[in-house]
């Protein structure tokens, strides 16, 4: 069964995104920690698209699709904005430096890469698409 959601590019919609993912996953017997890990990965990618790719322009929108293939969850997040957003390889955060610098950001994509089995960003026409997948046994 597939499930889809379209949201405008406002961080006010992040709660709606998390509820959408939770409700979809809660149809399966998964642990709270496992559900939270997937919710977090999707939230981080969506927040990056909203804030960094679209500058919180509410006239732009994102399309999310969730689908299970047996025990594998596949997530597609398609950005309908025209800014190509392809995060590069992420190094492990140096938290001692982050603390000294009082830095707030720079952990989101590290989390996504550690939480999901597969993380891919690519272009479709002049839009960016992110695919995430995770084996949920």
């Amino acid at each position, binding site marked *: 069964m597939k499930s889809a959601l379209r949201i405008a590019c406002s961080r006010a919609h992040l709660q709606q995104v998390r509820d959408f993912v939770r409700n979809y996953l809660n149809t399966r017997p998964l642990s709270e920690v496992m559900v939270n890990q997937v919710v*977090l990965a999707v939230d981080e990618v969506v927040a990056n698209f909203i804030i960094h790719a679209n500058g919180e322009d509410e006239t732009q929108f994102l399309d999310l699709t969730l689908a299970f293939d047996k025990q594998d969850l596949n997530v597609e997040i398609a950005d309908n904005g025209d800014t190509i957003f392809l995060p590069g390889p992420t190094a492990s955060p140096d*938290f001692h430096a982050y603390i000294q610098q009082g830095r707030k950001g720079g952990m*989101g994509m590290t989390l996504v890469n550690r939480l999901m089995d597969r993380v891919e960003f690519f272009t479709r026409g002049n839009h960016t698409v992110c695919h995430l997948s995770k084996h949920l046994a």
Partner: protein
Amino acid sequence: MKVTAQPSADTLTLLLDGELDASSAIVLDTELAKPDILNYRKVLIDCAKLSYISSAGLGVFISHLQRFQDANVKLVFFNMQEKVFNVFEILGLDALMTIVPSLTEAEAA
């Protein structure tokens, strides 16, 4: 996200209630940025009702840590739900921050 401050003699306890994400992190940031927070010896973060944290929420704590350390203010987390603790663990932040199971241990930390 709701933040409730409970001051006592030398300790400020902040009760977090809700989901801490890129939208709500500003609420916590505003609380931690208050200058008089540095007058306390300890800031205890009660996470019993914190049901979610994203990197934006973690970033708020990290961004104030040096300021707290410079002022000799100890930041201690307690009552953390397993799914929230798991996020700290995944990044290795559980080794850099003081996270204890209960209020009793937080007061003793």
